[in-house]
């Protein structure tokens, strides 16, 4: 029987339990947040580290609270714990006694932070689990945990705890091309809702909204997944393959990987359209990646010149007046592209019509935004059509300008296959030009294959030297591989090189010809190609990628001379897109690939798993919620025997009983009594029966059962005990009582109660 006297004790206990409940909710939030970071760092070590640190601090906070430590001290103690963890883990013995941070420790931390900053810039996603990243993870998790704990529990402002999550969610939003996956966001949202609800529960000890929260959480996961599946453009952030370049002009973390990802986009997105006065279609160059670190091609940071009022741009480097040039104009309208770089034909001499502040790079004539973005720009670019003769190209004196020394950089540990292949491919070539042509022919004329998926399937998506080595063996890849391979091979042969990224000329609109033709460029036209430097001519593009792009006329000795009119013969016609179409069926398989693009599958896999788990567990949650609601109702006031009876019947149904509503309470009680062996439980059942009969059929107002909840729990325990392990599991996972009995096929008539 319940007694009112014990109530204060119970309240005290629940308040304490409430703190633990909030802590668990916070842990869930932390867990959910960690999902959004999956794919940033290789492996799962960081994830366990994150959970370990987070739970350590959160649990410590709650333990301190339970011990009665003053609230003000708790965050300070937590900070101290974090400092100890950091010193232990990253101090390299600089700490006093190894655990107390000293000045040296903080210097070491500062160094790690700097290292982390540069490494973030250097590494693509997923980054290798470097120590500086682990440091960031531990530090970030610790700070987040302390913030969450302080806001949600100490200051009782769980709503503000959501703010603490935002910086964490921004990280993947910046580093992943598509931003945070909606599924991960939904999980975070669900966890956050759960936190709010736990808080409400703790304060009011009422308002059962558990199921509602779960329903909301599950629903948001479902909605997010549906959106992710039905709107690939949204998932990957539209044609914003360079949206990650928020760090600086020309600085994106992994432009070439982003490029590959965009090429694998299931549905091409319209990027821009242009008209051109050039006699032949021209590539639209965004920027050049001229710094090779061994693992990645990057744009080198240089001082940029603001575009002056006249919008004129300096002279192309190394271009002598002897080379025949012809000016042409390209009028571009950018539809959907968030690049910091402006797509223009190379070399550009002037740009007009831009809005916002733009600057140009004197080394490669890249035009980058200072305070704006390429999206929605309408502009007219004047470029030069360079038509060097083969003689001019061959005339390369072999002297490389000092400013281009870095464009010859080759890592010391370059795989031997790259050097060997370069030498083998250029046997017999004497001049640099011949070597370059030989390299291009090596790619185009031997058995290389174009595939956007093979590298992923075999685990070498990217542009590092290890990737290039693998590519040379596998002989299958896409433009990034061809371009970076040729560029690095050219460097081994002494030819300055860089990788350019931009767009293929695209396809002209049907029915339009000549200079008035409007070309439409989509995300499928994203391309990378090498540019090699020849003294007297300057930077000259090559096209090693099999089946894509236009082979420059000056690389074909047979048609060697002068104007490269219509190099592939069909580029100005409406079917001019000289591409190997991306097979939509194979793009689907890329989702199962490894490496960088495994982020999305992992996240959606986690989301899908959570969805499945949520759906599987939803009945269990609903059933538990119903029981808890009923028990709470029973404890809140006297009476309610019919509620208890419903719970008893539902539980019996969960255990596989047939419980018909044509059965009188007495008849049902007799059946229950048959399986109860314990006398206490039998007595409880009798009291329960009496109560429900009195309540349902007795004279009104004369009877209020007391202690119904306790009796009910006794009887339920008896039922559970009898059900067996499998029966109990079944009752938890697939509670039959959630289906109204009226929906069930009515069985044979029950035995009469008589």
């Amino acid at each position, binding site marked *: 029987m319940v007694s009112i006297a014990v109530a204060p004790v119970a309240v005290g206990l629940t308040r304490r339990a409430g703190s633990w409940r909030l802590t668990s909710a916070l842990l869930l939030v932390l867990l959910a947040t960690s999902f959004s970071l999956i794919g940033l760092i290789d492996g799962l070590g960081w994830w366990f580290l994150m959970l370990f640190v987070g739970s350590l601090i959160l649990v410590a906070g709650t333990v301190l609270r339970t011990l009665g430590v003053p609230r003000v001290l708790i965050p300070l103690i937590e900070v101290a714990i974090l400092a100890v963890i950091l010193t232990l883990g990253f101090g390299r013995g600089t700490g006093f006694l190894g655990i107390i941070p000293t000045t040296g420790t903080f210097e070491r931390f500062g160094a790690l932070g700097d290292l982390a900053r540069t490494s973030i810039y250097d590494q693509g996603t997923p980054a290798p689990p470097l120590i500086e990243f682990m440091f960031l993870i531990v530090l970030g998790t610790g700070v987040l945990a302390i913030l969450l704990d302080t806001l949600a529990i100490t200051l009782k402002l769980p709503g503000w705890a959501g703010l603490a999550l935002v910086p964490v969610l921004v990280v993947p939003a910046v580093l992943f091309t598509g931003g945070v996956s909606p599924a991960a966001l939904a999980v975070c949202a669900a966890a956050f809702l759960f936190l709010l609800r736990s808080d409400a529960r703790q304060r009011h000890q009422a308002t059962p909204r558990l199921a509602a929260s779960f329903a909301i959480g599950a629903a948001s996961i479902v909605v997010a997944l549906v959106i992710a599946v039905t709107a690939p453009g949204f998932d990957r952030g539209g044609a914003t393959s360079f949206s990650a370049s928020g760090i600086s002009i020309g600085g994106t973390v992994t432009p070439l990987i982003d490029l590959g990802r965009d090429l694998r986009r299931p549905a091409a997105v319209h990027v821009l359209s242009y008209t051109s006065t050039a006699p032949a279609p021209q590539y639209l160059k965004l920027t050049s990646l001229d710094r090779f670190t061994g693992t990645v091609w990057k744009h080198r940071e240089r001082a940029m010149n603001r575009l002056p009022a006249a919008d004129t741009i300096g002279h192309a480097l190394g271009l002598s007046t002897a080379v025949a040039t012809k000016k042409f104009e390209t009028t571009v309208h950018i539809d959907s592209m968030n690049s910091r770089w402006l797509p223009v034909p190379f070399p550009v001499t002037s740009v007009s019509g831009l809005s916002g502040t733009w600057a140009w790079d004197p080394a490669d004539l890249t035009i980058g935004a200072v305070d704006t973005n390429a999206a929605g720009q309408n502009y007219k670019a004047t470029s030069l059509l360079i038509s060097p003769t083969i003689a001019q190209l061959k005339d390369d004196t072999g002297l490389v300008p000092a400013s281009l020394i870095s464009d010859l950089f080759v890592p010391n540990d370059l795989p031997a296959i790259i050097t060997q292949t370069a030498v083998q491919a250029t046997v017999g070539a004497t001049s640099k030009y011949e070597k370059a042509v030989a390299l291009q022919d090596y790619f185009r004329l031997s058995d290389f294959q174009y595939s956007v998926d093979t590298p992923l399937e075999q685990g070498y998506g990217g542009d590092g030297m290890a990737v290039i080595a693998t590519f040379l063996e596998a002989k299958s890849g896409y433009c990034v591989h061809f371009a970076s391979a040729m560029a690095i091979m050219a460097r081994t042969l002494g030819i300055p090189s860089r990788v350019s990224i931009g767009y293929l000329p695209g396809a002209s609109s049907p029915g339009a010809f000549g200079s008035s033709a409007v070309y439409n460029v989509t995300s499928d036209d994203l391309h990378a190609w090498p540019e090699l430097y020849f003294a007297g001519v300057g930077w000259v593009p090559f096209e090693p990628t099999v089946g894509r792009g236009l082979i420059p006329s000056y690389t074909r000795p047979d048609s060697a001379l002068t104007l490269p009119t219509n190099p592939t013969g069909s580029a100005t016609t409406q079917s001019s897109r000289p591409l190997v179409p991306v097979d939509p069926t194979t793009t689907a398989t890329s989702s199962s690939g490894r490496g960088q693009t495994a982020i999305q599958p992992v996240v959606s896999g986690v989301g899908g798993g959570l969805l499945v788990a949520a759906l599987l567990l939803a009945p269990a949650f609903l059933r538990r919620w119903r029981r808890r609601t009923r028990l709470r109702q029973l404890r809140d006031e006297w009476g309610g025997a*019919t509620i208890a*009876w419903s719970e008893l019947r539902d539980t019996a149904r969960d255990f596989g009983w047939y419980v018909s509503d044509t059965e*009188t309470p007495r008849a049902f009680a007799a059946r229950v009594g048959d399986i109860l062996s314990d006398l206490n439980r039998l007595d409880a059942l009798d009291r329960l029966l009496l109560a429900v*009969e009195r309540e*349902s*059929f007795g004279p009104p107002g004369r009877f209020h059962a007391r202690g119904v909840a306790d009796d009910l729990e006794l009887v339920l325990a008896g039922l559970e005990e009898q059900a067996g392990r499998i029966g109990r599991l079944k009752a938890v996972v697939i509670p039959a009582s959630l289906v109204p009995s009226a929906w069930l096929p009515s069985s044979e*008539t029950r035995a*009469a109660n*008589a």
Partner: protein
Amino acid sequence: MNSYPTRQPTDSSVAPTEDSDEMGLDELRRAAEGIITNVESVIDGKHDAVQTALTVLLAEGHLLIEDVPGVGKTMLAKSLAKSVDCTVSRIQFTPDLLPSDVTGVSVYNQAERRFEFKPGAVFANIVIGDEINRASPKTQSALLECMEERQVTVDGTTYRLTSPFIVVATQNPIEMEGTYALPEAQRDRFMARIAMGYPDDASELAMLNTRDTSSPLSRIGPVVSASQLRAMMTTARAVFASAPVKQYAVDLVRATREDRDLRLGASPRATLQLVRAAKARAALDGRDFVLPDDIDALAVAVLGHRLLPTSRALGHHHESAPVIEEIVLRIVGATPVPVGTVGR
């Protein structure tokens, strides 16, 4: 052979009596147990039948005991009557029994030079009608009118019957020559019909041992007075029947009217008597409110004799009672019990 009514010469008040005061449920239970013990000392192994019979008695209903000869129908009726200290009359129905034998007759008293009413057999608290289906329809209906109206009108004068007034009739279900089966309308007057059934071996053996020498009926005497019985009835009538239970009774009775296996369903009077009987049963159980279980337990007894099965449902059965019992149990099993719909 004419069998004239016999009267027990105790407490022969013909005049109607006022309802006695209520008695407590515990007292009622004790008294009822006394009656049951008394009756069961002469009838072995028929607890259910005795229980139902007493229930009907408490509900002031009329009881029809239907079974083959020799299973103790009359013994039950007689022992029940004997347990109560009240007037009992017994009518042996025969084809030549006249209505006036039942109701009474006005005879001319020459000494006083006026007509004088000689009360018939029905002027008793408990009237035992043996083999009621052997009487002519005219006589049957004379009795049945008394049962419903609880009064007798002879030569323009109305005489009220005693209270309590209970008819316990027996009849043989197997049709024989010279019997007149009770029409449905008249069967409806009985609150309940029970069957005795054959006793089990042990009971039959025990009966041989105890009854061989003397009539057991002679050994038992009244255990409750008429006023006590009236108090018990009053208490039973005061038992609370909640709206859900009443609704349940209505649902049940309506279901008999809609059942495909029944040619004739139960009447509204059946509903009334079902609830009344259920109250009595609850009182016997020591409860002051009716449970659906009471309704269920009495459904066959109270509804059974009012129903007519279709010939399809009857099939090759000679007797309808078992068929009807099956149907009623099926209906009971298919009618939802209202738990928790009212009350909170």
